[in-house]
Every structure is written in C-alpha cells, then in structure tokens.
C-alpha cells in the first residue's frame, strides 16, 4: 500500500513501544518501523489528536473527514484479509476505535459532551427546557398527549419542530465562544456550556418525540 506521510498521524504512538510481532521498537506511526506490521492504536491523548486536530468545539467537517479517510486507508480490515489473524484483529479494532472517535467528533452534541468531559472532568447531563421556550414546550407537551390531531394541530407541530430545530442550532453555535473560554482556563465557562448543552439535549428529545408523533399520524 502506498500512503502519503502525514504529520497528524505521528501522534498515534510515542515510538517507545515494542512491536507485538518483532519485539523491536516500533517507532512513530501506526506501523512498526522495523517489520512494518500494523500496531494496536495506543490510547491517544484524545480523539482530536487522533485526527491531528487541536481540541476545539468548532471544527471544519473537511478537516475531520480528510484524516479519517487517510487513517481508514491505512487500517481498514479489508486491506488485511491476506495477513495473519492477529493483524486482522488489530486492523478491526483500530478501525472500530477510529470509527467511534469519528462518530463522536462529527456530531456537534456528542462532540460538545466529549470536549466538556475532556476539559472539565465529570459533568452531569441533565436535560432542561430553555426558559424562553417554556410556554411553547408546555403547549407542545399537551398536543403530544392528544390521541387525535386536527390538521391545524399537525401544522402547529410541524412549525414547532422547525422552531425548535432552529433554536437547537443557535444554541449549539453559541457554545463556541464559551468553549474557547473554557479551553483558555476560565473554568467559570463550564456552567454556561453545561446549561446550554442541557437545553440542547432537552430540545433534541422533544424534537424526536414530535417527529415520532407526526410519523404515527402519517400512517
């Protein structure tokens, strides 16, 4: 396999481990510098580092996608079908880990959760309704309890769903400056991030419930 070298990949490994196969020092990168066999991904400092990114809330999807593809090309089990069982298992586990990290960083809510736990330790996830949407949420809750919905009520639910989706996105976007503060050592920003994230999660749940209800009505 031919692969272009990429600085971002060197952090996979600090270079002082011994290869599982040839017992020599593996050097940097996901392959042993001696026997070129694939090495299990060491627990890297964080998911961001795996992709050669600085830990930030705002990330450009392309900056994530590119190293993800490069790493997949190096480690995917499809390229290890001819090799030993141990190498196939390492390839599978490495790729599974890579996929998990990618899944977390790609999703803004999961990414926020992850970054928060990374920088502020244990946090409590406690979905709470945003204060400014309190009335609308109460109303929606009542609508969702109805067995039968009128055409107007369905319209209203659709409108609410859109409102909530927009609000959710706004809240997610507003996380960035607070995360920046947090990453710069302002621990006070933690509560701000937490409360917004809890609002987002509340909205996520209620949006899902609206969607389910609307789908149920379609059938």
């Amino acid at each position, binding site marked *: *396999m*031919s692969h272009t070298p990429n600085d971002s990949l060197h952090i996979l490994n600090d270079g002082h481990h011994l290869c599982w196969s040839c017992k020599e020092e593996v050097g940097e990168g996901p392959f042993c510098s001696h026997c070129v066999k694939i090495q299990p991904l060491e627990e890297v400092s964080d998911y961001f580092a795996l992709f050669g990114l600085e830990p930030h809330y705002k990330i450009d999807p392309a900056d994530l*996608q590119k190293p993800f*593809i490069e790493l*997949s*090309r190096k480690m*995917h*089990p*499809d*390229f290890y*079908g*001819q090799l030993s069982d141990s190498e196939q298992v390492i390839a*599978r*586990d490495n*790729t*599974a*880990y890579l*996929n*998990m990290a*990618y*899944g977390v960083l790609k999703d803004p809510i999961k990414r926020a959760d992850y970054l928060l736990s990374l920088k502020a330790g244990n946090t409590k996830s406690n979905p709470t309704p945003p204060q400014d949407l309190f009335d609308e949420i109460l109303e929606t809750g009542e609508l969702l309890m109805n067995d039968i919905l009128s055409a107007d009520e369905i319209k209203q639910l659709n409108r609410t769903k859109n409102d909530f989706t927009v609000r959710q996105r706004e809240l997610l976007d507003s996380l960035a400056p607070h995360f920046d503060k947090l990453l710069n050592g302002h621990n006070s920003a933690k509560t701000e991030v937490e409360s917004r994230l809890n609002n987002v999660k509340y909205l996520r749940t209620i949006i899902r419930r609206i969607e389910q209800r609307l789908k149920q009505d379609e059938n």
Partner: protein
Amino acid sequence: MSNNKKKQIAIGIDLGTTNSLAAIVTDRQPHALTGEHGAIVPSVISLKDKKLEIGRAAYNALVENPEHTVYSVKRLMGKAAADIKDESGRYPFEIAADPRGLASVKIDDTIYSPVELSAAILLGVKEQAEKALGQPVDRAVITVPAYFDDAQRQATRDAGKIAGLEVLRIINEPTAAALAYGLDKKDRGTIAVYDFGGGTFDISILRLTDGIFEVLSTAGDTRLGGDDIDDVIVDFIINEARANDIDINTASPKIRAMLKRNAEEIKMDLSNNERVNIDMHFAHQADSFSTALKRPIFDRMIEPILNRTIDFCKRALDDANLTVDDIDEVILVGGSTRVPAVREEVEAFFKREPHCDLGPDEVVALGASIQADIITGGRDDLLLLDVTPLSLGIETMGGVMNVLIQRNSKIPAVANEIFTTYVDGQTSVAIRVFQGERELVADNRSLGHFDLTGIAPQKAGMPRIEVAFTLDADGILKVKATDTRSGKEQDITIRPSYGLTQDEVKSMVRESFIHAADDIEKRLLIELSNEAKTVLAATEKALEIVTDFKPGEEDDIRDAADDLREALKGNSSRVLREKLDDLNDATSDLAARMVNESLSGLLKNKKVGDAEELIK
C-alpha cells in the same frame, strides 16, 4: 505447457431471493461467471425422493413438483416460524418450525433449515463458477440486503461455510452495486442506490471521494420485493376468477405454484406491454377463464408497495442529513426495478433519471467480486466504509432498550457499557442483546442472551462489569464481558435466538444433505488427471529430443514428473493441481526455448502456418 501458476482465487456471490450468481475479477475487470444457461442460477432447490437439484433444473420442477421445490428461502433466513406466519400460506411448499421454533421447510417429513437450503444454492453457484474457471473455488464475498439484521447475516455466513466456502466478507448489496458503478469513475459525489429485488428492498446513500465509498445511511425492509408484486397479481387473478364464478383452490400447492409462475410472467410482460391477456386453465377443474391486465391498473395496484419504498428513501435521506437535491446520481439495482412504474416513481422522487446501464441482475455480484479482489490484495485504491442498518443494545431495568451502537454507525464498531448488580451478593447477571429502533426491547429483535456468572459476591451496585460490543466488518456482533475489578474476562457464547450454534454449523459442514450432490471433487479430479497425462506425455517426449539442458534442469523436470505421476495415483485434486503446476514451472523455460527453436527453424522455410500449428 504453461507457466502461469494459478493464484488462489476468490469470487463474489450475489445470493438473491430469486436468482443468484457469481463473478470474478480478472485483469482488474469484474465479469460474471456463466454456465450453460448464462450466469444466473435460480435460487430454487428441489428435493424429490431426497435427490437434490439446484438452480435451473429445480426451477423447471416448480410447477410439476411444487411440494418438493423450494424458492425464496432468503425470506426465511434468521426468522422464527412465528415471524412469517402471515406469509407462509402463499408458498406451495410447507413451512414448519424446527424444534427451536425457527422457520424451516418440511419436505417429505424431513425438516430443512433455510441455512442449509441456502448452502445448497451457494453450492450450485460455486460449482458453476468452478466449471467456468476450471479450478476449485473456496473463498468468496457474499452479499446480503443492507437491511439484514445480525441473525440474517450470521445465517448467510453459516450457509457459506456449509457450502465449503471461506466467507471473506459479507457485504451489503447496494454498496456492492455502488462499487461496480464507481469502479472506473474518479469523480466525487453523493449517490443513492435503490435496490428492489425479488424479496427485499434497500436504499443506501453513499458519498464517493477518490475511491472511498462511504455509506452515509441505509434503510429498507427485508420482506418487501418482487414477491409482493407477484402476490398482488395473484390476488387480481383470484378476484377475476371469482367474478367469473370460479373459486380457485388456493390450498392446492400445484395451483399456488402455477399462480406464482403466471404472476411472474404477467409482471414481466407488463414491463414491455401496455396490456397483457391472461388465460387461466385449471387441469383438474373444468373451468377456465380469460381476462386482461392493463398497465395503469397494475400501476395503481402496486402503488402502496412503491410508496413504502419511497418512505424508506425519505428516512435514509433524513438519517444522512441530506435532501433530494443533494443527490447527484441514482442507481437502480434488482430485478424489480425493471417494472416501469418503479422507475417512474424513483425518477419522480429523486428528480433525476436513474442509472441502470450495468444490468440490475449482475451488478451486485460484480461489486462483490471487486470487494473479493480488494480483500485478497488485488487492489488498494478502493475502499468501502459501510454502516450497520439497525441499532444494537441490551435490555436494562423495565425492559428498556439501552442502545450501545446506533443505527447507521460505521462498521467495524466498538462500544462499552459498565453494568452492576441489583441485589446484594448477586453472583450472576443475565445479559440480553437486542437489535432495533424501538424504546422497549419487547418491540425489538432478540439476538441472543447469556448469563454472566462467577461474579464475586458483593453489595448491590459494587461489581463493575464491562460489556463490550464489537461489530465486525461483516456487521456481525460479538460480545465480551470483563469483571473490571478482577480483570477477569468472561468467556461468553451468545445463544442465538434465531440461528444455529457454531457446533450445529460445524456438524453441517461435514454432514449436511447438500454434500450428497457435491461431485465437484470427483469431476475436477478427472479433468486434472487428463490434463496431467497430456502434460506428462509432452514432457517425456521433450526429454527424449532435447539435449541442451541447463545445469540441473533435467533432474528438476524428472523429479517434478515423478511427483506428478505419484499424485495421479492419489485422489486429491488439490495435490494434483499443485504437482501439475510444479511440473509446468520446471518445464516453462525449456518450453519457451523449444518454441523459439522450432519457430526460427520453420521461419527459415517461411512456413508460418505450420509454426502457428506448432505453438498452439
């Protein structure tokens, strides 16, 4: 004499509800492996008086011998008999429950599992491939509908094993199709694969970037396909008959088989004609009647089915966070996309004309063979990144589904969850694994369960048991549990809810009824023996006339020839092939020199025609 050593080969197999076929990549191009009736092997098995027929021969027996002829086995894979209760009445053969309640087929009081019946189909495909290639095939990539659950995937892999195949990978049919289409295209874009087969429907949304085929989402129904369209036509015929005061005896297997065959023909005719005349004759009934089915009526009849497929398309787009406008290309796969109404519906929904230039029947097998080529090291510029169609989780308090791996997660995938005990001194916990999207496990599919035992008795909530899910690149789940305090790993075997245990598979690999029909070894042995004798004769002749041997060459050739003579006495085609290749290797240089010499000698006399004769 040839010096091309046969490399270990791997084929791609599309194991379809109605038709199956194999393909292989040679010189970087995939092509279907054909037999005397083309590439397609009908997915039909007949078992009259325990004599196994597969494919075309079985298909021909369908109407004559309906109770002994089985089709659409794929719909039974990984299912409980109770799951398919509503549709079991439409088959002419008998659906039964095996002792564990799994859906099976009963023929002459013998129960056959769908896994074994699928293995028989795979065997038929494998034999056709071996004939086409002139050598044994024991490795394959097999395709499944993207929406197949864990039990159905596992059943397919087991079927491969029983048929004597090392299953390199299980891949999704729409993804395989995308691979075949995207093979030579260097472009980027987002594509939708609409895969409507004989028994299943899948929609997959993929992103193509420089040879990477990244599946963004998938949706579908493993029991929605051409079979359902046939059923609509069968109902139409029954109703028309009733209007003519004829009550069709649908309890008769023969009549059910005949109706099914008629419906298929009418459906195909309607793809090319605006109107099809239907003449029904019932041998045992004096009655017969004629009617006609017009395309617009047919289109209206199947509209609910098409609407369901479009609903899945919407969901797949939603899951990928995309809209119809984001789709650059639409690919049609599967025989049911030949129905004009299907194409029109797809075109109307996606607002663009769909592609179908690769032929909806072959494209999946072609893609599978490309994947086989990738896995066996044939190329590394293409890569499939696929997803799991359904969420995976375990039951927690109150029967709630606790999801560990979300649907549309990339595979392979891992997930961990820490568990503890509810009662003081508890030494075991039951872990039940489920697949599906509903909140309560009762509404999802049980994959299996295991008891984690040997937990050191502690206060409730103290033990920390890590349960790890590993979903491999085939989309098949493995579960591991570790007591994190002791670091002790529990050896866990999930007892599958809807499948065979690995011991059962092992015994079928040796003892399945399908091996009675497995005469490929014998046939290969005969073919190879003939080839070996020809090569030996030619070698002996060469040894007599040639004088300019290189050092050691003559001895090498004589040794290889002796080995081959020895192999001829045995009955292993593998050994014979090996020794034959060895002899060909030993003589390759000599053969080349001989051809050159005779050519130069002959060319002096300008007898080119003879020279061609000689080197043939």
